[in-house]
């Protein structure tokens, strides 16, 4: 595989970002929650102010659990 044969991803980023911004502009995310993070990851991201817009919900299954289990 030659690197030159792979298109540069930056060619699609700007357009996709614009579409994402339009989508997010009409979203009211209050009340939307995400699964809890690993505690070490949460501490690291909190320290750097990088927790993201969605609060964690401790009642949701953690991502690792989501990956392993299948719903009945």
């Amino acid at each position, binding site marked *: 595989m030659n690197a030159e044969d792979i298109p540069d991803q930056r060619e699609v980023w700007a357009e996709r970002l614009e579409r994402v911004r339009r989508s997010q502009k009409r979203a009211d995310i209050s009340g939307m*929650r995400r699964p809890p993070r690993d505690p070490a990851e949460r501490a690291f991201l909190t320290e750097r102010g990088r927790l993201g817009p969605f609060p964690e919900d401790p009642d949701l299954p953690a991502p690792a659990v989501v990956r392993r289990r299948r719903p009945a």
Partner: protein
Amino acid sequence: MASDLREQLENVLASGLSEDRLEHAGQVARIAGVLHRAFGEAGLRSTIVGGSAIELHAPGVYLSGDIDLVVERVRRQAEQIEAVFESLGFERRGRHWRIGDLFVEVPSRTLDDPSEFMRVGDAVFEIVRKEVVLADRIVGFRQWEVLAWGQQAIDLLAAFGSEIDEKWLRGKLEHEGSLDALEPLRTLAGNDKPVTEGTLRELLAGLRSKMQR
């Protein structure tokens, strides 16, 4: 070679990670390129998964604060993962690796999902395909009612438009019992109506009710 890669990594991290979406994605890509080369030279194959894969396919949906990497052995005499991280200057904290503002986790040693090579400038690395991250969000929304992932699925559908491998995506969602959520989410991605917690809860309730009929 390790010192060259370590220097490249230090250069990316020297000024901290940017808040600008495209610059941040570019930094993550450069880091991914360094990790891919370092692991590749050690006989290991690394693939970007999780939130950073979302960001690299569609900047703006997710500003990743960490990188999830699946690392597989491709050579019998491959080095240990630990040796590669240490050669790049990472410190181990439990099951995570840290350097500067960067937090890396290796959640798995095997990858079942399809991947592809991605290039961003000079950085080349392997990453799960965009349909994988989209399916992950749709399944999380449909099966576990994670509303944040429903919104991210809408953002991803908006970002990708018609560029999606529908056959693979539909097969995956059908296998995961979540195909019925695809079109309603796509409709939300394609119109101008506001999306709220109530919109997503109503959608889930409608899908549940159809299943019970």
